[in-house]
């Protein structure tokens, strides 16, 4: 534990501390840091970097699909693009940004000085980063050193038997396996750290039912990660054995089972969707009350719903596999369990609305992103329920309808809340407020772009357009929807430019944030912006879920009612 031991100590030279640090010394500080805040920021920055790379790939994919019979990209490169885009967005963008938010915020929110295992935390970050680097290294190394292949081109879920040695020559698939596997070590390390930190390091008075909702939800996420990543790793090791040592786990011609891979992958893959979206819920659950000027509606039910989502999500994986021809009983079970997830999720949506209802809502940029999230995630949820109906899924599985559905989850849900989180906590991390004007430009342009891109793709999917096709013929009714989708990408790119410009401008010329710019209620706002390395001079003690409210309203504290 960070502050528990007193020997041996490393003194800080006072004279050196007073001097302006050189760039190498700054780099050294960041590279060797075990501070949860720095590691959190490094996770987020790395995630954003991969986001830009993967976003550019998505833009190229959309250029290719903008017109029928287009040949802007060669087919092989197109396959690599969608594989790298999908893989990176899930493993190198979503996961690390979530890990970054968890790292940065959890100790501050629970009144601790650091994570339980600071060195493991650093290890987790670095192995994730090197894993990400290894994935992209495949572009250079696979043809350069092994003479075959390039970046992976088997799709982000790498179905067997396509990944078999016979169909995937060279080492591109091996790069996919190895890079994801070692990045997964980082995710497991982060998850264990979050669990131990939350369980053991909460400040005095913070019982489980007094934790901020953000902390509750990331605790559920951490448990999910620990449970669902090992099946993926196991499957990847089996696939490595197939590819390197001639094992036959997934070799259908030698008695293996391609469906086995699908089970292993989706036992990980569907809970992974919740690993990604639950932190989005966590962010919304922090932002919406603050900007509605009301405590969260139904805290206990929200906690229960989060746990239920985590639990139910472990039993829905085969809804990705309706088309393989399962038994009627299996179809019924997985359709039912998938629909059941809608209940706790619906509870959450109603509770967010209940929080806003009658509130004195301030539509600042973080709140705008969260409101858009509510609408878009509702759309995503409804199309998810549609896809849970097995006969409907038989018609639209692997079509652009599915692509539109999960982009509404991951962009309309997760990315919008990540943007909200950045606008909300950027002042805490940097001491500077992001520009509201640029933020609103970012919001509206990106909102238009996102819906313009992915709304029409639902229709293209219903009209029968399969996902992952390289191009398509004229006259199938898909042209206009694809063109609209590609035009939407331009808006999204402009929105991202506003975002990047806002960050750079605000770091340079932004208004000072002060300790508590949003008049918020959780503990991170009780320390300076940015917080000192030790977070709090003295560890706080709380009596309610909104400790800062108690301080600001001594005649009407929350603990009287909880």
């Amino acid at each position, binding site marked *: 534990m*960070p*502050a528990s*031991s*007193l*020997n*041996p*100590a*490393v003194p800080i030279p006072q004279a050196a*501390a007073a001097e302006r640090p050189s760039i190498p010394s700054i780099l050294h*500080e960041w*590279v*060797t840091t*075990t501070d949860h805040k720095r590691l959190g920021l490094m996770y987020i920055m790395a995630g954003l970097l991969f986001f830009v790379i993967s976003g550019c790939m998505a833009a190229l994919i959309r250029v290719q699909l903008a017109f029928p019979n287009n040949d802007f990209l060669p087919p092989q490169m197109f396959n690599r693009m969608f594989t790298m885009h999908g893989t990176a967005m899930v493993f190198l963008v979503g996961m690390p940004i979530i890990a970054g938010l968890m790292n940065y915020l959890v100790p501050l929110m629970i009144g601790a*000085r*650091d994570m339980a295992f*600071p*060195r*493991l935390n*650093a*290890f987790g970050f*670095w*192995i994730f*980063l*090197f894993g990400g680097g*290894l994935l992209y290294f495949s572009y250079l190394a696979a043809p350069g*050193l*092994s003479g075959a292949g390039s970046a992976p081109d088997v799709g982000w879920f790498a179905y067997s038997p396509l990944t078999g040695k016979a169909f995937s020559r060279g080492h591109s698939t*091996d*790069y996919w396996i*190895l890079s994801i596997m*070692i990045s997964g070590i*980082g995710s497991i390390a982060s998850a264990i750290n979050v669990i131990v930190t939350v369980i053991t390091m909460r400040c*005095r008075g913070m019982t489980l039912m007094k934790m901020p909702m953000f902390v509750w939800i990331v605790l559920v996420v951490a448990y999910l990660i620990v449970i669902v990543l090992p099946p993926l790793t196991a499957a990847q090791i089996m696939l*490595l054995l197939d590819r390197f040592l001639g094992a036959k786990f997934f070799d259908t011609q030698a008695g293996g089972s391609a469906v086995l891979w699908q089970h292993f992958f989706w036992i990980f893959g569907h809970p992974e969707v919740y690993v990604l979206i639950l932190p989005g819920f966590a962010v919304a659950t922090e932002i919406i009350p603050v900007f509605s000027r009301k405590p969260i509606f139904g805290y*206990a*039910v929200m906690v229960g719903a989060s746990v239920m989502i985590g639990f139910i999500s472990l039993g829905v994986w085969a809804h990705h596999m309706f088309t393989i021809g399962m038994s009627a009983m299996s179809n019924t079970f997985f359709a039912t369990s998938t629909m059941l997830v809608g209940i706790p999720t619906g509870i959450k949506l109603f509770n967010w609305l209940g929080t806003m209802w*009658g509130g004195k809502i301030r539509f600042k940029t973080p709140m705008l992103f969260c409101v858009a999230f509510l609408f878009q995630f509702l759309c995503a949820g409804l199309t998810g329920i549609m896809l849970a109906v097995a006969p409907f899924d038989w018609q639209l599985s692997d079509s652009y309808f599915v692509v539109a559905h999960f982009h509404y989850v991951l962009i309309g849900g997760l990315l919008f809340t990540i943007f909200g989180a950045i606008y909300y906590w950027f002042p805490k991390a940097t001491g500077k407020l992001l520009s509201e004007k640029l933020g609103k430009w970012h919001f509206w342009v990106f909102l238009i772009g996102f819906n313009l891109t992915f709304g029409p793709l639902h229709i293209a999917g219903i009209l029968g357009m399969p996902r992952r096709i390289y191009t398509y013929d004229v006259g199938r009714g898909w042209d206009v929807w694809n063109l609209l989708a590609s035009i939407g990408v331009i808006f999204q790119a402009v929105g991202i430019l506003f975002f990047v410009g806002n960050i750079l401008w605000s770091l340079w010329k932004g208004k000072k944030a002060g*300790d508590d710019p949003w008049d918020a209620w959780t503990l991170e706002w*009780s*320390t*300076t912006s940015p917080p*000192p*390395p*030790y977070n709090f*001079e*003295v*560890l*706080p*003690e*709380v*009596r309610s879920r909104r*400790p800062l409210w*108690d*301080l*600001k*309203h*001594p*005649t*009407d*504290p929350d603990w009287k009612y909880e």
Partner: protein
Amino acid sequence: MPGNETKPSSETPTHIALPAPTMWPMVTAFGITLLVTGLVTNLAVSVVGLVVALVGAVGWWRDVLPADRHEHVPVVPPSERAQPVQVAAGRVEHLKLGQAGHRVRVPAEIHPYSSGLKAGIAGGAVMAVLALGYGLIRHGSLWYPINLLSAAAVPTLATATTEQLRAFSSTGLAVGIFAHGVVSLLVGFVYAVMVPMFPRRGWLWAGIVLPLFWTGLFYGTSKFINPALAGRVDWPWFVVCQIAFGMVTGYVVARSERIETRQTWPLAARIGIESQEERE
């Protein structure tokens, strides 16, 4: 803790011990990455990776054993610390349940579910009488409306002629009674749940608005659910039957004695962790 503050657990220290910066986790991670990269490049890369990972692991080991290495970070001077939290100027006025202006309508008292059962039976009976009356007056047959209703589930009735629908069908009778009975009971339950939540003019909602909603829903979907009925239904009679059902069902529910709910209790009391009596 006295008062209502987030109060310090001790006096402010001058230095705070934090884990010392270390490069070994990064070195270990790099070593492991090289170790696996050797699988797809060259064995030598794995050998180097193994060595680097071992060096990193040993360095890490020495960081934490026999005791954690840490640094003493000086606490910033008071002028650079977080400003004390200011007491808010305004006061919060809490609305009480039932107070004027309170927009929340929690059904503190509800009709028992058994009233829904009774109401469904009563409403269903009245509706059946009216429907049978329609059959007798318009088609000279009691069986016509029953067979028409059953056509949703009985394929032979779905394709039957009007003459065949007027004739007795044991299957039609069984299916019709079952379908009408089940739907009547379920709608009766819905009424029992919903009637306490109507803001005012319960008779209007229960007797007219809900039957009209239901009729609209059925109008929109009947050609999919029961094409035979959709093609032959006499809509004015249908609406009259629905309104009669709604009025009788709503009346029976409204007449039942209300029972108290636990909606206004705190969650802890509702799930039995503490008793309501203790709180009071």
